[in-house]
């Protein structure tokens, strides 16, 4: 089973990268952009086809490693069999 984990800096925390990207986008001609948040995305092939087991494992991975919950939030997504990535 394939899953996607997305990790973003917490809302209340300053996101210097997101801010830099927004400024850069404005500079190169996208004035309408009023907020950018920059996060990380992981595509993970799991050794299980069990949805519940997958969810448990992914949560544990996030807590242990993929996200630093002091400053980051994460979200999970199970990808369709083929893998949604182009």
């Amino acid at each position, binding site marked *: 089973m394939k899953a996607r984990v997305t990790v973003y*800096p917490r809302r209340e925390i*300053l996101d*210097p990268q997101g801010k830099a990207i927004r400024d850069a986008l404005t500079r190169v001609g996208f004035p309408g952009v009023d907020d950018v948040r920059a996060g990380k995305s992981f595509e993970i092939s799991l050794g299980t086809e069990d949805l519940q087991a997958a969810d448990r494992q992914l949560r544990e991975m996030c807590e242990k490693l993929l996200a630093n919950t*002091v*400053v980051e939030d994460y979200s999970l997504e199970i990808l369709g069999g083929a893998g949604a990535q182009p």
Partner: protein
Amino acid sequence: MKCGVVVFPGSNCDHDVYHVLKHVLEQEVTFLWHQDDSLQGCELIVLPGGFAYGDYLRAGALAALSPVMGAVKRHAEAGGLVLGICNGFQVLLEAGLLPGAMRRNENLRFQCLDVHLRTERADLPFTRRLKPGQVLRLPIAHAEGNYEDSPARLDALEANGQVVFRYCEPDGRITSESNPNGAARNIAGICNVAGNVLGLMPHPERCSEAVLGNTDGLALFASAVEVGSRHLQAAGAGR
């Protein structure tokens, strides 16, 4: 005093710290491998700078899970001395031995330059050779030194006296211009509540010899070594 320098794959200041402890301060030093979970009886543990496990994901995140960190945690809980420098500091944060987290430098670039630090605590095992308010000049070299935590936890950190060093002007004033990476409240180094675990972004080992033109960093190691030797003497006297 027996000192241990932890070597993760990707550590690159391990030899530098070893050199200062061994050749400048003439202590017994050994390298500790990331996969061992014994500290071989070392009293001072240093987590050196570098890019442990490539710093992929987040600086220090992968290293925090290595076997040796279990032993370092036990050592710290028992009151043993632990010093994390730069990447070592990041590992301590990720391992939960110190509070807070690092983000990328505000300008999103690696920065290598000399900064000034104001000493906020001169009563710790690592700072007893310094005076309160003393200003040091130390080099930094990092891309993720932008210290952060929630306002409430930062307040608690301050209230507990856990802020040990702050970036400052040469005359000791705390200004935003003197902050090289955007760290909350100009924080450059912090300790745990007990004061036996210290993490800082600047590199004291890079300015501990006269031939390099600056010896401001030596006091940190010398303080720790002095504390350690007293322990030894006390233990010896007791026997």
